């Protein structure tokens, strides 16, 4: 565990970059430092591997002051990923990745074999091994940066705005990849970003910092969204935090109705037999059970259902895995106000109204509050 104890960084000109910051960074999880520029988040990160020395306070790694070991030994035990990757342009991709193993005195062959392994792990094609950095796209370069940081299998990974310089689509891919790698490797990751959405998506814990190097709030993302500590955090989280928070609640608890669902080849009796007391609309599916669109029951004539006459159903949510946010989004997108839940193959599992989703949200909030208290209690005992 990394423990930052009342650390201050003051520059000779009197600027205070970090002000009496204390933080406990839990093992084997992603801790995100987020805040506006000038809040000291990068300075904090760089103090962990002593790229910057604190003016006051101590940083402990597994209970031992980081000043107690030689600086380069410390740095080699922590992977380091920076914005734009910072690859060595005169070295091949393979040799870039093999940097730290080579520094640690591994043989050339062993280092390269390890580098090949890492390329695969971060989703880089082996054919890129002999290429040079300029021949790679920004996203690929950043993957190399991550592979290089992981090469010597360090327990700690420090990442300084690693995905800020790539376009949103590539960034999403890299974020998903990082979460996947983290599932496999379970590193202690400290991740700096100015992007609150990235923080909420990646962080197990999120430390929001404010200008002047002060910690504003340190909490799991769901808690951050539900109960920001003050106006600054609330403002920093942005306008739609209520909606975003729904990402943390599963849609699995929603009660899906199958009675308002008919197949496109339904007979007049089948249509008439549908119970429309709860649902004013019927969802028509194709013969595979995939959604086609909504219709009012009286507009459906057996045998003459025209798929392009139906009302749109928005973007269905996967009932088993998606969040309440996806379900709500689906309901909002459809003019009927009903959301379509599908299974992983895209077949309709059932439909649910905005109203039911609203009830589920209220229920989740109530539960969330109870959970929050339990979680805090757990933190205290730990």
């Amino acid at each position, binding site marked *: 565990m990394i423990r930052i104890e009342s650390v201050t960084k003051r520059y000779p000109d009197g600027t205070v970059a970090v002000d009496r910051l204390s933080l406990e960074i839990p093992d084997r999880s992603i801790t995100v430092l987020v805040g506006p520029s000038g809040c000291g988040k990068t300075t904090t990160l760089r103090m962990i591997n002593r790229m910057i020395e604190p003016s006051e306070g101590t940083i402990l790694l597994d209970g031992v002051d980081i000043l107690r070991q030689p600086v380069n030994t410390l740095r080699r035990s922590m992977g380091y990923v920076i914005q734009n990757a910072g690859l*060595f342009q*005169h070295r091949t991709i393979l040799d870039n990745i093999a940097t730290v193993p080579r520094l640690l005195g591994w043989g050339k062959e062993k280092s390269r074999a390890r580098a090949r392994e890492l390329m695969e792990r971060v989703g880089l094609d082996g054919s890129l091994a002999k290429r040079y950095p300029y021949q790679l796209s920004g996203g690929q370069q950043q993957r190399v940066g991550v592979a290089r*940081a992981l090469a010597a299998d360090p327990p700690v990974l420090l990442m300084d705005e690693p995905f800020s310089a790539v376009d949103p689509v590539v960034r999403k891919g890299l974020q998903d990849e990082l979460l996947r790698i983290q599932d496999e490797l379970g590193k202690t990751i400290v991740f700096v970003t100015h992007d609150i959405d990235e923080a909420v998506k990646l962080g197990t814990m999120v430390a929001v910092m404010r200008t002047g190097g002060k910690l504003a709030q340190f909490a799991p993302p769901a808690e951050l969204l539900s109960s920001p500590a003050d106006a600054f955090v609330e403002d920093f989280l942005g306008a739609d935090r209520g909606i975003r928070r729904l990402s943390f609640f599963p849609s699995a608890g929603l009660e899906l109705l199958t009675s308002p669902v008919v197949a496109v080849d339904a007979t007049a009796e089948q249509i008439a037999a549908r119970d429309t007391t709860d649902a004013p609309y019927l969802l028509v599916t194709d013969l595979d059970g995939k959604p086609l669109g909504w219709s009012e029951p009286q507009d459906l004539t057996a045998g003459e259902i025209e798929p392009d006459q139906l009302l749109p159903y928005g973007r269905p949510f996967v009932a088993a895995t998606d969040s309440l946010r996806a379900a709500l989004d689906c309901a909002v997108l459809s003019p009927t106000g009903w959301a379509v839940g599908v299974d992983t193959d895209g077949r309709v599992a059932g439909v649910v109204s905005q109203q039911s989703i609203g009830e589920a949200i209220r229920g989740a909030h109530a539960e969330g509050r109870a959970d929050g208290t339990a979680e805090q209690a757990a933190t205290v005992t730990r």
Partner: protein
Amino acid sequence: MNVLTYIDAFFSDSAHWQGYDGIPTRVVEHIQYTLMALGIAAVVGLPTGLVTGHTGRGGNTLALIATAARALPSFGLMVLMFVLLGLGMAPVMIPLVVLAIPPILVTTYEAMRAVDPAPVDAARGMGMAEAGVLFRVELPVALPLILSGLRTAAIQIVSTATIAAYVSFGGLGRYIIDGLYQRNYEKVVGGATLVAAMALATLAVFWAVGRLTVSRGVRRGA
């Protein structure tokens, strides 16, 4: 008679290819002077440029010294040194070295400053020692520019080393100075042609060194 006839006459005279005043001897002497002056200038200029460029300190002082050194006339400096030190290699070497240091020093410094700071930061953050950062991260990237500084210095030395003949040393300047004295223009033009050819050969050597030492990853676009 035009220049080409002079050149033809000079090179086809078999007497110019033999003995202590023959072309091979003079070329070898010229190469020796050049290598010696370039070597001394590099020993002074390269480490100074690498260290100041790496640390980023002393850039202004460096520019000042370099400008001052460039303002010194080589020929005048040699005569002065000859008067002060008497006959010897030193009065020849000093002006050549003074001439060669500024391009080496200034380009090396600039080359190091121009290295992208991101990989340097990454290297330090990964626990590379300072010497490693300098030699394995910065130098390979700065190399093309450093070589261009050395090349400029070498070419200036090749053309200026002709002044050695003025204080009774050899080299290709021998033909030019003797030719002028003897009003033998064939010799003057022949000597000048050899100097020009040697400057071109220097370019070729540096091109080859660049191909061999600069990584493909750095060379792209160049």
